[in-house]
């Protein structure tokens, strides 16, 4: 999976190359945090969905290593995160194919309602199965953590599932 370092984010790089940018602000620490937040918001809108998902999954695994000291539980968590990644990456492909097929069908003036419903139903079987598996994997993550661990890890799961940045 591709890793996104803060140095790759243009405004962060600009800050590092030109420290004078920071000095014009009253509170450099606060300003850097604000810049980072802005960068992350911008970055999540420009990274292709597959790469954003891969980056978020990797961030979640790194968080496990950093925040869950028990190696056995960390291994269980990473196994579940790996499968979560496989499920969601595969679902992204299905989603894109469904959109493309649906638009092609819809463009046909002679398409029947049954044809459109059939394609929707076909996609829905896969969608519902993936959704169920995602919740099973969530339950595995919960089972491998205590409440304190989960508080630290949940922001990463949220980023994965909402295609945003933690």
């Amino acid at each position, binding site marked *: 999976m591709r890793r996104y370092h803060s140095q790759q984010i243009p405004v962060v790089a600009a800050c590092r190359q030109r420290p004078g940018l920071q000095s014009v602000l009253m509170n450099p620490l606060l300003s850097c945090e604000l810049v980072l937040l802005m960068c992350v918001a911008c970055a999540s809108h420009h990274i292709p969905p597959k790469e954003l998902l891969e980056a978020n999954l990797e961030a979640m695994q790194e968080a496990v290593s950093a925040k869950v000291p028990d190696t056995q539980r960390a291994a269980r968590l990473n196994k579940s995160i790996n499968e979560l990644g496989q499920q969601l990456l595969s679902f992204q492909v299905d989603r894109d194919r469904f959109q493309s097929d649906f638009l092609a069908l819809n463009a046909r*003036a002679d398409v029947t309602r049954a044809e459109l419903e059939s394609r929707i139903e076909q996609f829905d079987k896969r969608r519902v199965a993936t959704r169920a598996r995602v*919740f099973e994997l969530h339950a595995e993550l919960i089972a491998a953590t205590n*409440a304190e661990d989960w508080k630290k890890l949940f922001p990463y799961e949220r980023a994965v599932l909402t295609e945003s940045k933690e």
Partner: protein
Amino acid sequence: MLMALLIGWLFLRGHGGADYWFLGGRTPHQIREEVAKVVPDKEIQNTTNYNLGLIEKTYKDLESERSKLEKDVLAALERHDTPKEQFHRFEAQADEIDATATKSMLDVRFVMREQLSAAQWRALFAPPTAP
């Protein structure tokens, strides 16, 4: 892709987001502009635009349901003690919203199709070409 994976697609199959993916990424407003170019008959223009308005309204109504569902599901995922049954309830709730939305959208789609010629339909709803 603006729709979030979990709520937007795993729950609602793309309904209720900011992007009208089934219009090929165009907004109803952009389609209306195309209607003005492609459909010469003013009466058919008006009925087509009315139906586009129905799609828009359905989506705006869905947006609030989608936002509430997203908030509730994320809150349940965040808690360490959420029972599995709660997630099943969310799934059932989402499926109900989805079924109603899908039926409404297909109803409007076929009403619109009847009002336009085959050539007009193809001109308005040609799938986007790959970049």
